């Protein structure tokens, strides 16, 4: 009995972390599909979301909702500036240059955050209290429910956007074949800009909802960004839903590994999975993407 309760607890916390990885992975996949770039700065938007919320809450003393909205808006603006200033001027650059540029941007954003907000770790209050809820002997915090709810909402919204709105369809067209999309009158440049805007918004949202559980500081982006990338590799870049599955699977494996194998190697588990998948199915994952990118 005790054993199954423990297992259930691990599964719950694994799924909530997994949801965060899924959201971050979603941002990776969106930019990759629009531009073929893996944005190494993705994790920094997650950090920005959390840190900006802390800033608005504690320094400007805003209440939680305007603080979150402002944090998402500002992160999105940073994402847009990043695309305009660093990505767009480099048309047809080699992958190597693009990797180095997004790494540069990631360090720059992290450094700026460190200068502005210092090196301290900050706590963000939970959205609706810290009273644990008991489900089948396992405890769950209200914040976990928030994470599940926000993730599901964002994924549903994404699905509707990409399948039913004209802009969403245009973005899918660009992902499928940018040249052909340009020929039928879609402004490909704007779609790329939009993909950066959306993925930085989603990234910052992920950072905001996880901040109350894990605390936040200027350097949380690196690890979270990498885990999001693992999620995308596990699930595949092809569709939103498989990224979500990848994220949840990663979260679960990590939680179970930390619980039953070794807590101190928790972070290593994600990377071992990443390497194994890249080694075993390096082309298999791409092949799926070639057939259908969104």
């Amino acid at each position, binding site marked *: 009995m005790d054993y199954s309760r423990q297992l259930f607890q691990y599964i719950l916390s694994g799924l909530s972390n997994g949801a965060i990885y899924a959201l971050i992975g979603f941002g990776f996949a969106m930019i990759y599909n629009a531009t073929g770039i893996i944005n190494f700065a993705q994790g920094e938007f997650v950090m920005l979301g959390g840190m900006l919320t802390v800033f608005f809450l504690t320094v400007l003393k805003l209440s939680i909702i305007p603080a979150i909205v402002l944090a998402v808006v500002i992160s999105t603006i940073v994402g847009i500036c990043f695309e305009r200033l660093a990505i767009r001027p480099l048309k047809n650059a080699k992958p190597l240059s693009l990797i180095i540029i997004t790494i*540069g941007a990631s360090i720059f954003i992290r*450094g700026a955050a*460190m200068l502005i907000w210092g090196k301290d770790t900050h706590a963000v209050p939970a959205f609706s209290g810290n009273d644990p809820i008991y489900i089948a002997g396992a405890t769950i915090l209200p914040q976990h429910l928030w994470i599940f709810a926000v993730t599901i909402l964002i994924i549903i919204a994404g699905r509707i956007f990409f399948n039913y709105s004209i802009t969403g369809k245009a973005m899918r067209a660009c992902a499928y074949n940018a040249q052909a999309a340009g020929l039928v009158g879609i402004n490909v440049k704007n779609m790329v800009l939009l993909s950066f805007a959306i993925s930085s918004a989603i990234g910052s949202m992920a950072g905001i909802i996880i901040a109350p559980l894990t605390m936040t500081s200027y350097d949380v982006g690196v690890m979270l960004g*990498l885990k999001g990338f693992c999620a995308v590799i596990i699930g595949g870049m092809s569709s939103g839903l498989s990224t979500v599955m990848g994220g949840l699977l990663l979260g679960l494996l990590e939680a179970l590994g930390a619980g039953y194998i070794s807590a101190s190697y928790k972070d290593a588990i994600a990377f*071992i999975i990443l*390497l194994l998948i890249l080694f075993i199915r390096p082309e298999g994952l791409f092949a799926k993407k070639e057939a259908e990118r969104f």
Partner: protein
Amino acid sequence: MFLKKQNIMTEKRQQILVFFIFATAVLMVPLFLKGSYLLNVLVFVGINTMLAVALNLLLGYAGQISLGHAAFFGIGAYISGIITTRFPIDPFLIIILAAFCAGVLAFVIGFPILKLKGHYLAMATLGFGVILYIIFNETVDFTGGPSGLSSIPSLHIGSLVFDNDWNNYYLVWVFTLAVMLLSINLFQSRIGRALRAIHDSEVAARVMGVNARVLKVQIFTVSAVISAVAGSLYAHIMTFIAPASFGFNFSVELLTMVVIGGLGSIYGSFLGAAILTMLPEFLRVFQDFDIIVYGLMLMLITMFMPGGLVGGMQKMAEITVAKIRKMKGKNAQA
């Protein structure tokens, strides 16, 4: 045809000449800096140059990125550190052992990792680096964990102990110069040409009969071995090591050195290593800003000066020469 061959010969001779001038300058420097703090900084410039050249072999020659090179540096440092603090064996033997271990590891993981390209290669090497960083941190019984491993003995040859800046300078720079000479020769060799072919187009290189898969793994292995030797030297010179020196941030710092110096340029790697090692030492203000400045340098140099500082200077020199020629031509016409 004959003429062309002669040109290559002179180019090679020119390169060797430049190298000997550089080497002489490097070996003369301590004479002017005896007892100065600068000498201590230059020891670390030497270690970082070695690492930057190693990464440049992979990144600049073969066009394959690695974001986990600090891990090989760490392997060298920890193997030397752990064994020499426990057993009274000649540390130089352990350097060879460390280099061998790093080489075997690089060779084994090289095959699956270097199958990947571009962003995926970057992520896989990064993942490898993070895994090793976690191992350095968590195997407390061996590495001392986050608080580090101390009292690593200094290197010695007979009664010559490498425990002061003067001796360390020569120790490090003999290794560094050897690595630089090796890399310059490699660039001019058949292997170097094959690597550059892979850099430009792997498919075309394969079509021409270059065994790209094996060659990439080989250069990755060479690069890892050099990094491990640098790590061993670092451990013996510092006599203290901690995982923080071998993390992702240091991998990025190495990348920055190579990029700002110039991809594929050996002297560029030296320049990049010198700049990144000396700036924080001399600009105290720089301390808090270093991370932001690295980020900016990486972005701006990649965007506006793809050849790095050395490439940029060469270009500038070419433009000036062309201008002077033009002026001369005009004068002659007049």
